[in-house]
């Protein structure tokens, strides 16, 4: 009997626990599922619809605010667009980060060159100059270089006048004076730009294969180009740094800056590439400004190394010939290739008529 009651009690409590367990599970399930039913039953959505219906004019104008367009009997590009939103973004980027960081980048680049000169001084030619010279740049190469370089300087000055003139030049020249300068700048910039681009394109076509990176350049990079210390890493006709500069000129300069320039003066649109909408112009202007500042920053380094930074470098691009000692120090692998063609420079004492063709050997 007692065992009977015990089993009955145990059965009872087991059933109670079972019921309790299921109840708790059900409560949990309902607590999770019931609030989610609002997703299934469309009361909330319908209410939102009603609100929207009541405020449909707001939706109408919201679309306008987001750049929607309509019909206008005044014909022209984008005359149907009521509000073009990109301009504010362009304004904030141009007047903000592009001119602030860009301006500092340019100043720091100049200061960096001066600082490097003060610390490191001019990189001298170690060996004694013997007067033997090797041909480094042909006449057409030098013409291509200086044609592009002159264009670059003109474009940099006129272009920077457009970005920083209001801040820097109006206080100096006055509004009328600066307006004259800016008017000249923009016209010179727009006309010189396309011719300059031809020069850069020619550089790409004629110099690209000399500028492909190879194992020697990797070694050159890993020793930091010999900037620190007196050891000079090996280099062919062009060292790793020169090749980097070349590809900056092509990728940043030719593609980004020259390309966006052609878009900005409307030539690309006339060729059927892209359009002249404000969004395009804003984008192209940003690319043009950022790319150009980067290019000018790199140019300061190039101009420094090519002139006051390195003894004997400028004469290569000026006269076409470099001294054998310079070549041996800076471009040893290239010198090994061309040393047989080295010529003795005409002695200062000798009169005219003794100059020798550069290809003859002595």
């Amino acid at each position, binding site marked *: 009997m007692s065992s009977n009651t015990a089993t009955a009690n145990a059965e009872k409590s087991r059933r109670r626990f079972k019921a309790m367990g299921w109840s708790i599970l059900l409560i949990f399930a309902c607590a999770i599922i019931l609030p989610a039913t609002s997703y299934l039953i469309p009361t909330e959505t319908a209410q939102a619809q009603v609100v929207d219906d009541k405020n449909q004019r707001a939706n109408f104008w919201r679309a306008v605010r987001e750049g929607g367009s309509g019909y206008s*009997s005044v014909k022209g590009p984008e005359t149907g667009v009521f509000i073009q939103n990109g*301009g504010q973004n362009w304004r904030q980027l141009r*007047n903000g980060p592009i001119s602030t960081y860009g301006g500092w980048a340019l100043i720091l680049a100049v200061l960096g060159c001066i600082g490097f000169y003060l610390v490191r001084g001019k990189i001298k030619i170690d060996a004694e100059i013997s007067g033997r010279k090797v041909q480094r740049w042909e006449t057409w190469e030098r013409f291509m270089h200086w044609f592009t370089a002159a264009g670059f300087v003109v474009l940099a000055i006129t272009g920077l006048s457009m970005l920083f003139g209001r801040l820097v030049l109006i206080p100096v020249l006055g*509004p009328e004076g600066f307006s004259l300068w800016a008017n000249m700048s923009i016209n010179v910039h727009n006309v010189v730009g396309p011719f300059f681009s031809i020069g850069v394109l020619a550089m790409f076509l004629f110099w690209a294969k000399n500028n492909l990176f190879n194992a020697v350049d990797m070694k050159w990079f890993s020793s930091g180009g010999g900037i620190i210390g007196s050891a000079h890493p090996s280099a062919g006709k062009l060292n790793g740094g020169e090749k980097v500069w070349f590809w900056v000129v092509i990728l940043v300069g030719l593609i980004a800056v020259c390309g966006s320039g052609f878009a900005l003066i409307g030539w690309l649109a006339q060729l059927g590439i892209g359009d002249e909408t404000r969004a395009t112009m804003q984008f192209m202007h940003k690319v043009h400004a950022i790319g150009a500042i980067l290019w000018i920053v790199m140019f300061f380094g190039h101009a420094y190394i090519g002139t006051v930074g390195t003894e004997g470098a400028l004469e290569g691009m000026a006269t076409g010939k470099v001294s054998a000692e310079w070549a041996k120090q800076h471009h040893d692998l290239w010198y090994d290739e061309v040393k047989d063609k080295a010529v003795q420079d005409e002695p200062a004492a000798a009169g005219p008529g003794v100059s020798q063709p550069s290809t003859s050997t002595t």
Partner: protein
Amino acid sequence: MAKMKFLCDAERCIECNGCVTACKNENEVPWGVNRRRVITLGDGEVGEKSISVACMHCTDAPCSAVCPVDCFYTTDDGIVLHDKDLCIGCGYCFYACPFGAPQYPAEQAFGVRGKMDKCTFCAGGPVDDNSVAEFDKYGANRVSQGKLPLCAEMCSTKALLAGDGDMVADIYRERILKRGDRPQTWGWEKAYGSAV
């Protein structure tokens, strides 16, 4: 001091383009330049809305902020004007303006655009008031004569309002109160019924 504002009542504008014509005629603007234009949204559909747009004479004008020669100035009346003698036609104000107000008379080779032209609120420019030079460069100076811009003065439905911002707002508020209730109970539906 008054702050001059335009307001176009989209419930009244009937896209007659009278403001555009009035502006062109009064200011004798160059060929191809329209200082004002009417845009119709949802054209041909029930509930289409038209609105007349020109320079909005912004308080923090983007055109002025990006101008490389700093040729813009805001008058005491809050009208944004520019000096065509300084303008170099670079196009930056056009890139920056959300309303497409700045326009250029020419597009020639090498991106030459000519001097920018835009709505002056019929307030001329920085040369002597009502002089020939002012008219040639900037158009009429009605504000100096105590008149309002002709586009608004000639608006047949008085949709386009111009003048002191406070007064314009008062007129518009009065209209809204007279119309009563929510926007969907006036304008199109009130005039033509909700079925149309």
